Structure formats: structure tokens, C-alpha cells
């Protein structure tokens, strides 16, 4: 262990910081996801607010030690509310040279880098394409580099557990965790519980030994002058747990089914980053959930449509390429006017694109991506916990307006975790659904007769006197019979459009963070909410006339949106695409909106958003 002499440790880090951002990085098999999520959980249990960002490659196990195989897990914990996993990190744990090289740009100036020196041998450096050992030249002079032979210390510490050399080496993530726990005064109990519940006896013992060894190493090594504490945050009262976006979608769907007294059917085909929804729901059979892993994306949605026809809560979920395959069936569901939920956990595109990375590039696909005029409501979740509320609202709308509803999440929201205030199910407003009952008057049943919001009745098989046929061919108004009549077609196109437009009446007043008029309104949607909000807060703290508006309802948009947009001198739309929402806003409201756009498979950084706000305000663009 050496502390770089050039850097004075103690003067650089606040001993009682408000927030800390740590990034673990290593090979895909190094257990950095586990390490990061354990620190996050422990911090949440200690009362900090947290946000996490797993950042991993598409390959399950890319060649060891290579740049392609680097997996990262970033977490942010703080004594105040946090909205993002953070821009740049206070501490980078690099388990090998490739991890250092890939992640160095995320480290704050004067930030701390903990490296496993054992991995910086000739082979490791060669695989990471380093010509010189960065630990031995001056390239890291602006950071505090803490060199620890993690691999060899781990092996020594677990010797008494009697496990194989390979297994011993795999414990090194726990050694690194132990060091971090000591450095930031984290409570070790929850992780010890986790180790003992998750691993078989000898491995659990070895992991515990490595974990304790890492902690002790921090405590006994003189070079670490002290550790740092982060106080508890003051959050809303209640019981909390950590939740990822995909878990929240699964919980939300089961809850929506309960609230509407329906059984949930979820048809899906495995796809990154949406598969965890299927995994989670497949464990809820006793809650009346039927999951169906179909032969393809098309069968998955068609089975869900069949389930909806049968009177169940039909749902399906995928990511962009899978949604593309479902497109024809989406138009079919629009035509059938049956309730259906379709989740798109967006990832980088087009085509296979960047399967594990975040983008918001499927907004046009969601709003417009069908043949013919096939309007569909679209909602976007703003955070992991917001996925729960969004999907419940989606089912509320689907059932009331007899329409498929698209719910947008993204890879960042799906895999990221944050504390979730566990709701009391009994206090959530029920979702009333009624089906027409047996009819014996001999009069024909009208499956396309419309109510006050233009919805048709949801008549389900098994009901006497209501036998009827539905399909994708244009329907005659009222009877639902096949009709090629030109005026009827236009009437039905208009009905379907007006029905979706009617949803606007249900959208609550739009919240503005900040003044309702001023110099600049930052508009965002989906999973970038936290970052945009932080950037606006920073601007406001500099007395700049900046407000934030975040959209959940992409189609239809809120009725008061137009007025808000007109009340600001500048409208800036931040999104992880090339300007899709901006185009819609410009087309819809004739507003001269500008864009902050990023299409790199990475989330926004607060500093980028803040810099753009400043730049627009200063008239530089």
C-alpha cells in the first residue's frame, strides 16, 4: 500500500460531506454490481437518500481484462434528497487497468481512485492497451490514488475458509467493499446478513473474511487518515425499501390488477433491459398473475390481446426492437378498442443498437409508429419509484377508455434503484371496471356503441346475449360489422382520435418547479427528470429565472401545457435523443423550443444541463 506523496489526502475531502458518489468498476464477472448495490442498500438503511446507475456491457462475460468487458455500478448517497446517481464520482474503485482506463473520465478532479495493484501486471496493462503503467507515470497526478494489492490480500484473508484458489480470488469484491464501508462509515450488518442468506456456507465464510479484512485494512493502514460520515437525509415519513424501475413496474401491474379486481396476464419475450419484469411477475402466480414467455414478441402481445378479450388485464413489455415487432398488433388493439398495457423499456437504437444503454429515442415510435391513423396514449415514467404510479395510471386509462396504452421507461430507470415509500394499497383509489351483463331481450348487442368518453363496452365471452365479432377490418359504427363505407371509416378514425384526446381531461394540472413565467423553461420527460431538476435548482440558486416542467403525459399532452410554454422567453427541451419531443412541441404549439440532446447511450450529467441553461440565458445560442 502506498499513498501518493504528491497528494495531501486530508485537505481534499470534506470529512462530513453531504453526499458521496462512488463507482465500482471491474470485469463483468468481478461482482461490482453486487458491491455497488450492497453499498446502496446499506446507505438507504442508514437513512441516506440514494440513487444508483448500473452501467454494464451487453456481453455476459466479455474477455477478461479487456476494455469491452468493463462493468460499472455508480451510486450516490446523501444527507439530502438526491435525484440522480451523480455526474462525476468522488471515489472510483478500479479492479483492473481496463476499468481504470474506461472510467477515469468520470472521476472528479482530486477525486480518490482505489486500484488493485495486483491486476496492473504486464498482461493486465496490455489488455487495457496501456503503453505505460499509469501507476508509475504522472498521468494520475491530479487524483489521489490509493494502491492496494486487493487480490493477494483477499487470498491471504480467506485462506482459513479452505476454498479453491479461483473461489478465493472471486471474493475480492468483498475486500473492496469492506474498504469502502470503513472509509464512509457504513454499517456492515445488512451486508453480513446478505452474505449469509445468499451463499453456501464455505463461500459465505470466505466472503465475510474478505469483507472484514477490507474493513480492517482501512482501519489499520495509516495512510487512510480517517473515515467520513454522511448523515441521514430527511425524507417523507414512512416505511421505505429500495426499488428498481423494473421491479416497480411489476409491483405496479399487480397492484393495478388488484385495484380493478382483475387477473393479470403478462406476455413477453426475453429482451434486455425489460426481462426483469417477466422474471419478477413469474413469481406472483399465487397473486393471480399469469406470465407467458412466448415464442416471439408478436405472440407475446397477441396472447395479451386474447387475454384482454377474455376479460383479464392483458399486458406485454419489451424494448425498442421488440416493440417494432409488436407494431402490427398494436394497431390491431387500437382497432379492437380493448384495454392493453404495452411497456417499452427503451435502450439505445436503432436495430440492436446499444442493448444495455439508455436512450429516449423511441418517443416517435410510441406516439406515431403504426400504420394508418392509430392514436395511442403514451405515458413516461420519471424514476424507478415513479414506474409504480405510472403503470397504475396507464391501466386506469386503458380500462376506462378501452385502448392500448404505451408506458415508456428506459434502461437507466429500469436498472437504477432508489428508496421507495411503500404505499398502503388500501389507500390507492380503486379502478372501477364494469362489463355488460347477460342480455335476454333478443335485441342485437352493439359492441361499438360509445359512452360519454367515446369508449365502447367491454363485453366478455361467456355473457349471454352479447355474442359479437371484432377484428382488424374497419368496423361499422355501433354494430361492429365489417364496413367499407367511406364516411363510416372517417367517422371511426375520428372517434378513435377523439377518444384518446379525451384523456386530456383526466390529466392533473401541470406542476412547474419554480416561477410560472420567466426567462427559461426547461422541459423534460421520462427518466431524465432528476438530472434536469438538479440543474434547474443550481440555476435558481444563482438567482437565474429558470423553471422546470416535467412531462409524464406524452400523448395526449396536458391541456395547460401551451400556456406554460408561452410564459417563458426561452423553452429548452432536454432529451436523450435528437429532439423528438421538441419536434412535437414545435408542431403542436408553434413554440420556438430549443433542444439539449445527447445520444451516447449515457444519461445526462447535471453539469451539461446547467451549462446549456447558462448558455441559452447568456444569448450564446
Amino acid at each position, binding site marked *: 500500500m502506498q499513498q501518493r506523496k504528491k497528494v495531501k489526502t486530508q485537505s481534499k475531502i470534506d470529512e462530513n460531506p453531504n453526499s458521496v458518489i462512488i463507482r465500482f468498476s471491474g470485469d463483468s464477472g468481478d461482482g461490482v454490481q453486487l458491491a455497488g448495490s450492497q453499498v446502496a442498500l446499506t446507505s438507504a*438503511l442508514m*437513512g441516506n437518500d440514494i440513487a444508483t446507475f448500473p452501467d454494464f456491457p451487453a456481453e455476459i462475460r466479455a474477455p477478461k481484462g479487456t476494455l469491452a468487458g468493463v462493468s460499472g455500478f455508480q451510486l450516490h448517497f446523501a444527507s439530502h434528497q438526491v435525484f440522480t446517481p451523480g455526474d462525476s464520482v468522488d471515489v472510483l474503485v478500479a479492479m483492473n487497468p481496463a476499468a481504470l482506463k474506461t472510467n477515469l473520465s468520470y472521476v472528479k478532479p482530486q477525486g480518490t481512485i482505489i486500484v488493485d495493484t495486483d491486476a496492473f501486471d504486464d498482461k493486465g496493462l496490455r489488455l487495457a492497451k496501456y503503453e505505460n503503467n499509469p501507476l508509475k507515470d504522472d498521468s494520475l497526478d491530479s487524483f489521489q490514488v490509493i494502491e492496494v494489492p486487493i487480490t493477494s490480500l483477499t487470498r491471504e484473508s480467506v485462506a482459513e475458509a479452505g476454498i479453491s484458489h479461483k473461489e478465493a480470488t472471486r471474493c475480492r469484491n468483498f475486500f473492496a467493499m469492506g474498504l469502502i464501508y470503513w472509509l464512509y462509515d457504513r454499517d456492515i450488518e*445488512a451486508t453480513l446478513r446478505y452474505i449469509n442468506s445468499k451463499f453456501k456456507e464455505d463461500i459465505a465464510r470466505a466472503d465475510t473474511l474478505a469483507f472484514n479484512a477490507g474493513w480492517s485494512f482501512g482501519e489499520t493502514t495509516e495512510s487512510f487518515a480517517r473515515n467520513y460520515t454522511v448523515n441521514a437525509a*430527511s*425524507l*417523507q*415519513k*414512512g*416505511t*421505505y*425499501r429500495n426499488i428498481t424501475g423494473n421491479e416497480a413496474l411489476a*409491483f405496479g401491474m*399487480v*397492484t393495478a390488477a*388488484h385495484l380493478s379486481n382483475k387477473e393479470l*396476464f403478462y406476455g413477453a419475450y426475453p429482451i434486455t433491459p425489460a426481462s426483469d419484469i417477466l422474471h419478477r411477475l413469474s413469481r406472483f*402466480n*399465487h*397473486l*393471480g398473475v*399469469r406470465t*407467458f414467455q*412466448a*415464442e*416471439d414478441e*408478436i*405472440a*407475446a402481445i*397477441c*396472447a*395479451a*390481446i*386474447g*387475454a384482454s*378479450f*377474455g*376479460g*383479464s388485464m392483458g399486458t406485454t413489455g419489451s424494448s425498442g426492437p421488440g416493440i417494432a415487432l409488436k407494431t*402490427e*398488433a398494436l394497431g*390491431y388493439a387500437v382497432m*379492437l378498442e380493448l384495454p392493453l398495457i404495452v411497456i417499452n423499456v427503451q435502450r439505445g437504437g436503432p436495430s440492436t443498437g446499444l442493448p444495455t444503454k439508455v436512450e429516449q429515442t423511441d418517443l416517435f415510435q410510441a406516439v406515431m409508429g403504426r400504420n394508418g391513423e392509430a392514436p395511442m396514449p403514451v405515458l413516461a415514467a420519471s424514476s424507478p419509484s415513479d414506474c409504480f404510479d405510472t403503470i397504475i395510471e396507464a391501466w386506469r386509462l386503458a380500462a376506462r377508455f378501452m385502448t392500448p396504452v404505451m408506458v415508456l421507461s428506459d434502461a437507466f430507470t429500469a436498472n437504477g434503484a432508489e428508496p421507495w415509500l*411503500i*404505499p398502503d*394499497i*388500501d389507500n390507492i383509489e380503486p379502478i372501477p371496471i364494469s362489463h355488460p351483463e347477460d342480455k335476454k331481450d333478443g335485441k*342485437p348487442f352493439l359492441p361499438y356503441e360509445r359512452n360519454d368518453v367515446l369508449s365502447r363496452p367491454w363485453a366478455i*365471452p*361467456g*355473457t349471454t*346475449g*352479447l*355474442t359479437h*365479432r*371484432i*377484428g*382488424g*377490418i374497419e368496423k361499422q359504427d355501433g354494430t361492429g*360489422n*365489417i364496413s367499407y363505407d367511406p364516411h363510416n371509416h372517417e367517422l371511426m378514425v375520428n372517434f378513435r382520435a377523439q377518444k384518446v384526446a379525451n384523456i386530456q381531461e383526466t390529466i392533473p394540472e401541470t406542476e412547474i418547479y419554480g416561477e410560472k413565467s420567466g426567462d427559461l423553461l426547461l422541459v423534460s420527460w421520462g427518466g431524465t427528470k432528476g438530472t434536469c431538476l438538479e440543474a434547474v435548482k443550481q440555476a435558481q440558486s444563482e438567482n437565474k429565472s429558470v423553471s422546470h416542467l416535467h412531462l409524464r403525459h406524452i400523448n395526449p399532452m396536458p391541456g395547460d401545457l401551451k400556456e406554460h410554454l408561452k410564459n417563458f422567453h426561452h423553452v429548452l427541451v432536454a432529451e436523450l435523443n435528437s429532439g423528438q419531443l421538441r419536434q412535437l412541441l414545435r408542431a403542436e404549439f408553434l413554440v420556438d423550443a430549443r433542444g439539449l440532446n445527447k445520444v451516447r447511450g449515457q444519461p445526462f450529467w447535471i453539469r451539461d444541463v446547467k451549462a446549456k441553461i447558462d448558455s441559452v440565458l447568456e444569448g450564446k445560442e
Partner: protein
Amino acid sequence: MSVAPKKTTNFSSDQEVRWCPGCGDFAILAQMKKILPLLNIEPENIVFISGIGCSSRFPYYLETYGMHGIHGRAPAIATGLKRVRPDLQVWVVTGDGDGLSIGASQLIHAMRRNVDIKILLFNNRIYGLTKGQFSPTSPPGLITSSTPKGTAHQPLYPLALALASNATFVARSIDTNAKHLSNILKRAAEHRGTAFVEIYQNCHIYNDGAFDFAKNADIRDEHTVELIDGKPLIFGKEKNKAIQLNGTSLEIVPLNEKTKRDNLLIHNEECSSPAVAHLLADMQYPNMPEVIGVLRAINAPTHNDRMPDERLPADTRVQKLKQFFNAGETWEIS
């Protein structure tokens, strides 16, 4: 509890049937209307689901619940419906284009899961609704609107595909063979699990006469053999030919006093191995007579039987859901 048989008219919808005059589909619809009242199932508990194509207009003409689907996907729609509504009788109506081309995947996966649905594949060996292109069952060399010099594609054999997909009921019938067809439809309806029925159906606009060998009264007895469970396969106008197994092949033998009856193939619908059924499916005109009847009918757990069903009563589910919410590490903010 038995219900009084329904009159045929109960199952006719008020919609005008719009197939080309003379289409084989009329004959199939007529037989369906004849057998539905015999099933003692109320019309509201029956659902017909179809894809796209001439055959797929079928649901509109029956007074039951119905879904006219999208191209090829009827088996998937039916799978979802049957999963949540095991109480319903669910029929799928498809064709050789819908079921074997665009929807081949949905068809085979429904069969291998043994979803308790009845699949009728109207095979006319041509695309009708799109005006006469070759289909996956068109014979090589067929001149069609998209193959002026004859199709170069090898055909798919629906029965072989169904057997390979482990369908638990596999049968074939002919549109105009009313008595045989109604019997097969009824047996399909009564089968528990996926019933797959190929129906030879004449498209007299684009592929007229495709099944003359099996329909023309003058020659059909020489080119078809009716399968009867527990009986030898005897055919010919004079009932003077039979089928026997020779090594791993089937062959035609004359049936007379010298024929060793013990050597004849005796049909066994319930044979656990599909091997012989595959040989039967492989009998093709003109070298062999083609089989009509039930090739295979076995009992096996259905898709719903195999799926876990640990559902709690609705009122206790919410307690369980609350437990899930609170599972793992939680903490209080006060």
C-alpha cells in the same frame, strides 16, 4: 348437466357470407353449423379466432364470440384467451398461407404446448385473397400469378408439421365429404388439448381441382384411404387394396384370399410414438393413397394443466402483496 341441443340456426350470424360462389369454405361452414349444436355448449361459451385470408372470415358467420385476427397470429391470441378463460371452447380457423407461412411459428408453438384449442387449417394450396400466388403447400412446378414458370419451392406437409410439433390430435378431412368432415370436427371439439385438422378445400378460382384425386367420385377411392381406429387400412373401389409395413416403409398390397391379414397395418390412434403416424402423413398422391381421418389422438396434460396454479383467494392476495412490498430490507423514516 346436459343442455338441450341447439338448432342449427342459432349459430348463424346475421352477416352475409362473402366467399366466391362454389368455394369449399361454404361446405366447411355448413358442417360446423351442424356439429356445434351437438356439443351442448352455449354459443356464448364458444370463441372462433382467425387470422387473415379467405378462411379467416369464418368467425363473422357464426353467432358465437369471435376475433378476426392479424395475419398468422390466431393461435397466439387463442393461447392467451384460453390461458385466462379455460371455461371457453376456443377454435382457430387458419389457412395454408396464414398458418404455415406467416404464422408457422405461432402454429407450431401452440401445438407443442398442447393448448386446449381446436385448429382448423383450410388447405387449398394457394393464396386466394391476394389473388393466386403459390402457398407453402403448393406442389413444385405450380404456375401461379407470382411463378409464371412454376414454383421452385418444396412444399410443407401440414400433418407432418403437426406431428413434429407433438400435437395430441391430428386429423385430415375434405370439404365436400360432409359426413366424414362433420365427424372429424366433432371429434376435434371433444378432444382435450390441441386438435389440429387439415381440411382439403378447393379454391375453384385460383387452384381448381387441386384435390380432384380425393374428391372426384370416379377416382377418389383409389387415391384415399380412410383411417379407422383398430382396423386395417383398406381402400380401392372394390376394397381390394391394403397397406402394410415393410421394414421402415409402407407399401400397397392386394387384398385377397392369399393376403396374410396379420401383416397388414392396423391403425392405432393412441400409439404413444408418432412414428407410424409420420409414415401415414407421408403417404402422398400419386404414389400412395392419401389418408383421411384421425392419425393421432392421445391424452396428455394441456398447457393450462402444466402451468402452476397456486392462486390464493382474492381476499388474501392483498395481504400477500403487502408482504412482497415489505420483503427484504426496509427502514422507517419517522
